């Protein structure tokens, strides 16, 4: 199932609504990198609230998605990592190093707005 990517101003919002297959994740990465260019996005929020498992493959792919977006000129914030998922990532020794995270969509958008303000 493809991940819908919505546009709000110069920000893209992608809500991952169901458990994604590996192929879906890679498709999402490519779609996002393209869409950042077509809508000239400066910020991306990826909402993973609905994901009850983030294994090492998904985590590293999400991190790669954020780095790809960065190279395309957009800042990514990953929001909605569930408490159990956060604990599991710590146990696995995985981090989203260099990628911003926020509690939820609202906080993520606020973080992007603050970063935009700081750039001015």
């Amino acid at each position, binding site marked *: 199932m493809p991940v819908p990517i919505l546009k709000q101003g110069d920000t893209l919002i992608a809500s991952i609504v169901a458990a994604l297959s590996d192929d879906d994740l890679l498709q999402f990465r490519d779609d996002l990198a393209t869409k950042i260019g077509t809508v000239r996005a400066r910020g991306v929020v990826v909402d993973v609230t609905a994901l009850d498992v983030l294994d090492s493959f998904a985590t590293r792919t999400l991190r790669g998605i954020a780095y790809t977006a960065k190279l395309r000129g957009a800042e990514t914030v990953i929001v909605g990592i569930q408490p159990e998922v956060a604990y*599991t990532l710590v146990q696995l020794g995985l981090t989203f190093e260099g990628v911003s995270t926020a509690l939820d969509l609202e906080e993520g958008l606020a973080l992007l707005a603050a970063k935009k303000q700081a750039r001015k």
Partner: protein
Amino acid sequence: MSELKIQIEREIDIIAARQAGRQMAGQLGFSATDQTLIATAISEVARNILIYAQRGEIQLEQIADGTRTGIQVVAADEGPGIENTDLALRDGYSTKNSLGLGLPGARRLMDDFTLASELGHGTRVTMKKWRR
């Protein structure tokens, strides 16, 4: 309780296996956190089956030891086997250049972890987690 077997042949089978594991762990009274740890460990070993052996099976079973209740997860395949099992359990080691943490990742999430492999005959990972 029952035993459950999930065939791993396609990518979506990974999701089915970890959801079945979470459900069984929930029925056995594991906490939400432990359910997530178990589901994630299953995801790691199931992906390993696909990457290295193309197909195999995840077996889920309730286990008991005295008064303790637990869940056992077996990931079995008849793939090429692992030449060096010590190396396979080392962080960052991968012969397929995959993004997954695989075996060392799964080991960190479970209480008990054993790896048996025979070249040309397959690999069997047995993992246990006990309810606290």
